[in-house]
């Protein structure tokens, strides 16, 4: 039985669909523009924060310790043994070990996690089932580190220590080792924390 309303209902549905399509087109267009503008507007702010709050202080601390070790190393190699020759040799070996351990530490081993980034990546994963993209530079660095880890694990038979990455505790321990050597030698480093 034909109702005069039926056709009109269909028309309404069609119109609604058209309307939804138009509205989402405009919403999406706005979204696309907005996301680009929002990102570009915030990159510098993020960069400055990451530079000043995390990268610079951690780099400074690690670099400082590496520099101390390098200076001590170069001194011991050029200096005439003060104690016995054995003592000096042991000291040189100790410094060399510290230097090598300090060199093994990567920024990614000791930087604090970016919790906001992790949380946001989780949201992307939940909502879209895919991981958030990284900047090419960072992604490439992680790749290089992965390959390094692979090689390390291949040659790990000789040195199982290489299988686990160093931590901030290791950094602290190396710092303490350096400190005690300096104390033993009467070399006074005024400031250890940077």
């Amino acid at each position, binding site marked *: 039985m034909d109702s005069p309303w039926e056709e009109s209902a269909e028309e309404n549905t069609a119109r609604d669909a058209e309307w939804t399509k138009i509205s989402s087109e405009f919403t999406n267009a*706005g*979204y696309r523009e907005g996301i680009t503008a*929002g990102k570009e507007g915030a990159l*510098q702010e993020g960069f*400055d924060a990451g530079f000043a709050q995390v990268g610079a202080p951690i*780099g400074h601390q690690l670099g400082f310790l590496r520099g101390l070790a390098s200076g001590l190393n170069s001194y011991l190699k050029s200096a005439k043994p003060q104690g016995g020759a054995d003592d000096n040799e042991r000291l040189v070996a100790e410094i060399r070990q510290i230097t090598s351990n300090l060199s093994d530490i990567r920024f990614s081993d000791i930087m604090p996690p970016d919790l906001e980034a992790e949380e946001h990546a989780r949201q992307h994963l939940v909502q879209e089932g895919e991981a958030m993209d990284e*900047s090419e530079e960072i992604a490439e660095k992680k790749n290089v580190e992965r390959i390094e880890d692979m090689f390390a694990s291949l040659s790990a038979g000789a040195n199982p220590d290489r299988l686990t990455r160093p931590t901030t505790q290791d950094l602290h321990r190396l710092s303490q080792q350096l400190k005690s050597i300096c104390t033993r030698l009467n070399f006074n480093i005024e400031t250890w924390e940077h």
Partner: protein
Amino acid sequence: MADQFDLESLVTLEQTFYDQGYEDGHAHGRIHGLIEGRALGREKGFEMWEELGFYQGFATMWRSIYIAQNRQDERALHHIKHLLDLISQFPKVNPSTAPTTTVEIGGATTEVDIEKLFRQIRSRYKALCSTLGVRPSLRAADGSAIAAEELAASSTAAPSGGVRRTGGGDDSGMAAISMGVDVEMGGDGSAAGTAGPPKIWSLDSM
């Protein structure tokens, strides 16, 4: 009259949808900009200050050795003092956007000063090394390169003459680093690693 009214309201509505989308997109884009910017800034800050910290540690160690042994080598102490002084002038915040750095360091533009300062620090470090008769360590951003360098240095006896590396090689490294600073720290956001259309967000899945 009625038609005109409809048309106007339609245009307004389209704008409203667009604005709504823009606002949502902008908020989401901002999150991504901050995250990506932070990741890049962390790397750059680490890279620069790891190198500066190394020179500082090296100079600090030698100064303490000289003090402990009461040695009076004026040339070495002079280099140490100037090296530490130069490093203390280096900004700990992104040099290109911190307005205070221009005042602190004094000079034409901040970026030029930072490059110049970095160059001065590097050559002062090398001068110190050659005075001490120590082979300078090549500082690279990449930790593995440093490891290789350190190990190579420690496995061979230090040549008494010291400086083996030519200045040219180091300077090109310097140029690469300061260029990286220009590109990434430039105030112009479009230069900061977002060449081409952003691929981070997929609209169809939103």
